[in-house]
């Protein structure tokens, strides 16, 4: 479904991605793990067209989307839950969710998706008229995820959805990611919480200073000694 080939991204003289390649198949949950500054966010932003790479390719369902501007990617079936949630603070929860469906025009289908999102996130329904900026961090994360789902995506990119959340919220967020996957949506998940990410992922790639240094079955990586040392704190 998604294929990244030899992606190189520079910020001025800093080379953030040094030619990474990986693949996400339909229906999979793929974890992308790595330390701070490894290039995880850069990877996701390049895939969704927020950044343009210096070289390399991004293919979505065999279509080259490398040079397609960011705002045209959503309607191709890809949604991106950005790092730091980035909800619209001055809009209500409901307005935020409707913004997620900006590229869709069929009102009855949008209403149906809204129902589904409210079913997955009952708390958002309770707070639908509250300003997003006044939600708690965990609620904002749910809103960011719900907003992404409003575009009815085939694949969702998530950038550290558990960052800064209390353990209860972290569990809830991972449960929701699992249910998004169960509903048939492909997931590319960037996480610092490697343990939880590997537990729900099918496969994973490990990123280190702009290179993919390890990849494989998530269960195998969970038992890999070097991974245990570096990312699982064991």
């Amino acid at each position: 479904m998604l294929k990244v080939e030899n992606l190189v991204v520079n910020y001025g003289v800093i080379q953030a991605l040094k030619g990474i390649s990986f693949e996400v198949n339909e229906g999979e949950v793929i974890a992308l793990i790595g330390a701070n500054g490894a290039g995880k966010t850069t990877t996701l932003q390049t895939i969704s067209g927020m950044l343009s790479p210096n070289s390399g390719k991004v293919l979505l369902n065999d279509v080259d989307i490398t040079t397609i501007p960011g705002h045209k990617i959503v309607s191709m079936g890809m949604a991106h839950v950005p790092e730091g949630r980035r909800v619209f603070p001055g809009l209500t929860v409901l307005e935020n969710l409707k913004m997620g469906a900006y590229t869709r025009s069929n009102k009855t289908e949008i209403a149906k998706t809204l129902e589904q999102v409210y079913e997955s996130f009952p708390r958002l329904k309770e707070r639908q008229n509250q300003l997003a900026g006044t939600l708690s961090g965990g609620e904002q994360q749910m809103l960011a995820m719900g907003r992404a789902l409003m575009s009815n995506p085939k694949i969702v990119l998530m950038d550290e959805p558990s960052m800064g959340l209390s353990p209860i919220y972290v569990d809830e967020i991972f449960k929701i990611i699992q249910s998004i996957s169960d509903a048939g949506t492909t997931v590319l998940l960037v996480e610092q919480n490697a343990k939880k990410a590997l537990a729900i992922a099918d496969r994973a790639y490990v990123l280190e200073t702009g290179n993919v240094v390890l990849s494989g079955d998530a269960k195998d990586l969970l038992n890999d000694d070097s991974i245990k040392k570096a990312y699982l704190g064991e």
Partner: protein
Amino acid sequence: MGFLTYLINGLSLGSVYAIIALGYTMVYGIAKMLNFAHGDVIMIGAYLVFMTMTGSGMPVVVSIVISIICCTALGMLIEKVAYKPLRKATNLAVLITAIGVSYFLQNMALLIFGSNPISFTSVITWQGITLAGGQLKITGVTIITIITCLIIMVALMWFVKNTKPGQAMRAVSEDRDAATLMGINVNGTISLTFAIGSGLAAIAGALLCSSYPVLTPYTGSMPGIKAFTAAVFGGIGSIPGALIGGLLLGIIENLAKAYISSQLADAIVFAVLIIVLLVKPTGILGKQTKEKV
């Protein structure tokens, strides 16, 4: 009756400020920049009306429409040529560029139209109404200006709330990158904002010069600065704030002229602004920016 006359004239002047202030406030809210060239688009708009209506004898409506279309195009052109390449530059660089564009427009007008003041023919021929047994006379320009301002405000608020491009404007003003992720074309939205602001500037130019019929290449700069003040006064970024700020500014200016001193009127206007900002730094309707990490 004197007071009422000053008040109504103040409302009319304030309506012009409000229409201009909309351009400042929308561009600031959505593109996060101060477009100091906005006042000069008013002047260009007024010259266009003068040339087409008085110069070529076209009907008023036609010449205003031509002026709106040209100013809309001019605003989009300015944005594309001068500001878009600076999207990632510092605020200071953008501000200096805007001042440069302002001088460029004034000098271009000097070159084309010369520095001699033109006596502008009002676009409104209606004489207006006389009330209270002839004691209170309200001119047609005054009435039309106020009504036009209110119509524009209502239409714009409806547009922002109920249309897709309006929703896109709200999203872009909140968070540009997140808006892109929603599928919103940020560059297109910013361009549309300039288009609307500049089209309104053309209307403001025609109304302003109908009330104060002296047109020079510098006609736009003082009302531009005052309208910017009005936008800050009402809360920059807020559409109803532009209305309230503009009306208050016009009224204060006119009453100060009438009862205190016409030389000091501008100083009083700015003094009031400073007091308001001391009490409420975000302006009357300005939002306190609150963010959660």
